């Protein structure tokens, strides 16, 4: 998908030559988000099949050569939606966001091309065992369930490729800073880069798990594994993973959406502080995913609970700051009184609407998240369908619906085509919204009140209870809305790609200005203290337990293929 700079007379000329400077960045972004959207289409299809299964309708017999069982489908659903759709879209989005925010092309484009190649090769490699039913281990791949080694190596390459993309971004930011001494880093570029650095730190955990344990074990180089140590490495990674999903949405919500609303960034300083706090606090919290694990002391679990409450704070701050930024826009568009500004927001703009609806859904996802984080309160919901209820509101909506909203300006930008049928795009946003509300509500209630287990073929479960049925029907209706929404999304995107109507002027990436133009204080534009703080907190929060678990490691578990 390349931007073709068609020579235009008069007004469009500067904008087009500007786009020409970024033609490689546009291509890179296009490849990344293209792979992301292709992956999501398969992931979503599997989700639909899961919804049917829960009502007792087994569609897997019709998909047998490709998807043989519910659990194979669920593995692919998780990998494609939670790992591929997200990682590829994020790297692609940041390729545009960082370069346009800095108004500077990539410093070493070959690095980012290499990153994409590694990610893509990794994806292809992992596709083989996934489709061949050699890796039906779900996207968390907990040992001693053992997948084929190509699964672990493929995922490793995807992660390493994302690191390489990050290095390309860091060199670019560094070059900009040298070329612009004394100037504050533009917000979008800073926030995106902080996200990539957080990701780099986070993925060290899963890299350690795969490279020191799972890969050699699956290749037969080590006889056994220690499941608790593997889990601990994974969840060191698994919590910041969700911030890797969330922070790009925050980049858009803070740095782009206010512009789309006719508003400004309510507080540039607080927005930056929020991102630094995420760098500091995203990782030293992973035991909240292991509250019910044996072998980890209650004291450490409680400390991580406190730190997790710490990392809830920047999100609560975000709720206010983003709402206030939108309020500026709503009032600028004529809104009056306490809430009149809400009606005046650009609800006719599908990109805006998708992102604002994503924020509303996230408000509820955040509440169930704080509940999950609440140490012993987690006992009520652990491993029930409350958990997927929660994360479909977060990664499934805050992230995914925001990414759809971003696509509604980004795809026109990359292709130079008009967005196809904006009314369909609006319908897409609203059907996703209602679909997720129904889906989420059903699953939260089933989990909390009935303890219905997650990751389970409920339609065939021996303990299936008729009391679940009304809620499963609610979930299913949600799935029908989501199915419609997904169809609308791809219809709009494909329609845009094949649209005859070109844009006269290229789409500009929306960049919100700060309401207060005073440069932010230097400490909000300085890496070292935050980075050292993040590393120190990780050493404190994880050091002692990792030392204990590693020194007491017992590699007693052989591999099992349980599917």
């Amino acid at each position, binding site marked *: 998908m390349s931007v073709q700079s068609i020579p235009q007379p008069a007004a469009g000329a500067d904008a087009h030559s500007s786009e020409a400077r970024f033609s490689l960045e546009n291509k890179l972004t296009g490849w990344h988000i293209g792979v992301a959207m292709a992956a999501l289409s398969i992931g979503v299809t599997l989700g639909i099949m899961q919804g049917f299964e829960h009502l007792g309708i087994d569609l897997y017999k019709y998909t047998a050569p490709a998807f043989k069982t519910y659990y194979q489908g669920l593995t692919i659903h998780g990998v494609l939606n939670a790992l591929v759709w997200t990682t590829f879209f994020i790297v692609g989005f940041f390729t545009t966001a960082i370069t346009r925010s800095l108004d500077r092309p990539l410093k070493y484009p070959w690095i980012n091309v290499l990153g994409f190649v590694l990610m893509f090769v990794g994806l292809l490699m992992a596709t083989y065992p996934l489709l061949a039913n050699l890796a039906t281990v779900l996207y968390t791949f907990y040992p001693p369930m053992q997948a084929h080694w190509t699964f672990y190596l493929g995922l490793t390459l995807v992660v390493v490729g994302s690191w390489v993309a990050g290095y390309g971004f860091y060199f670019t930011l560094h070059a900009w800073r040298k070329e612009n001494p004394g100037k504050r880093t533009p917000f979008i570029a800073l926030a995106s880069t902080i996200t990539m650095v957080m990701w780099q730190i986070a993925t060290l955990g899963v890299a350690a798990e795969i490279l020191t344990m799972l890969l050699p074990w699956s290749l037969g180089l080590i006889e056994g594994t220690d499941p608790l140590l593997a889990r601990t490495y994974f969840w060191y990674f698994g919590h910041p993973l969700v911030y890797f999903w969330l922070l790009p949405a925050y980049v858009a919500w803070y740095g782009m959406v206010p512009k789309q609303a006719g508003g400004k960034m309510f507080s540039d300083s607080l927005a930056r502080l929020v991102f630094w706090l995420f760098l500091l606090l995203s990782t030293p919290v992973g035991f909240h995913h292991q509250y019910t694990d044996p072998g980890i002391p209650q004291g450490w679990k409680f400390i991580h609970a406190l730190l997790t409450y710490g990392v809830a704070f920047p999100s609560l701050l975000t709720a*206010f700051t983003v709402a*206030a930024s939108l309020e500026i826009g*709503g009032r600028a568009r004529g809104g009056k009184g306490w809430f009149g500004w809400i009606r005046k927001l650009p609800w006719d703009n599908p990109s805006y609407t998708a992102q604002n609806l994503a924020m509303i859904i996230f408000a509820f996802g955040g509440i169930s998240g704080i509940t999950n984080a609440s140490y012993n309160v987690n006992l009520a919901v652990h491993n029930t369908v409350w958990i997927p209820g929660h994360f479909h509101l977060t990664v499934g909506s805050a992230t995914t619906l925001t990414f759809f909203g971003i696509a509604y300006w980004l795809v026109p930008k990359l292709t130079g085509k008009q967005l196809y049928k904006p009314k369909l795009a609006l319908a897409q946003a609203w059907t996703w919204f209602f679909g997720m509300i129904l889906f989420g509500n059903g699953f939260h209630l089933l989990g909390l009140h009935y303890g219905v287990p997650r990751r389970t073929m409920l339609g065939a479960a021996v303990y299936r209870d008729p009391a679940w049925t009304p809620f499963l029907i609610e979930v299913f209706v949600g799935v029908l809305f989501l199915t419609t929404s997904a169809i609308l999304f791809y219809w709009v995107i494909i329609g845009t790609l094949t649209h005859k109507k070109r844009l006269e002027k290229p789409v500009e990436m929306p960049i919100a200005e700060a309401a207060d133009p005073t440069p932010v204080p230097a400490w909000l534009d300085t890496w070292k203290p935050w980075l050292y703080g993040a590393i120190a907190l990780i050493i404190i929060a994880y050091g002692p337990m990792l030392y204990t678990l590693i020194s007491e490691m017992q590699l007693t578990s052989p591999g099992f293929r349980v599917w």
Partner: protein
Amino acid sequence: MKDPDTPKGALALMLVYVLIIIALWSNVYFTVLSRGATQ
């Protein structure tokens, strides 16, 4: 343009939000309490 230092709409929304947070969290909390001690 209205003075950005008085986002009264945002604050009002947040007050409604915090009540929802408290209600929903408390619901789960008291459910846990009703299910009893574990040690």
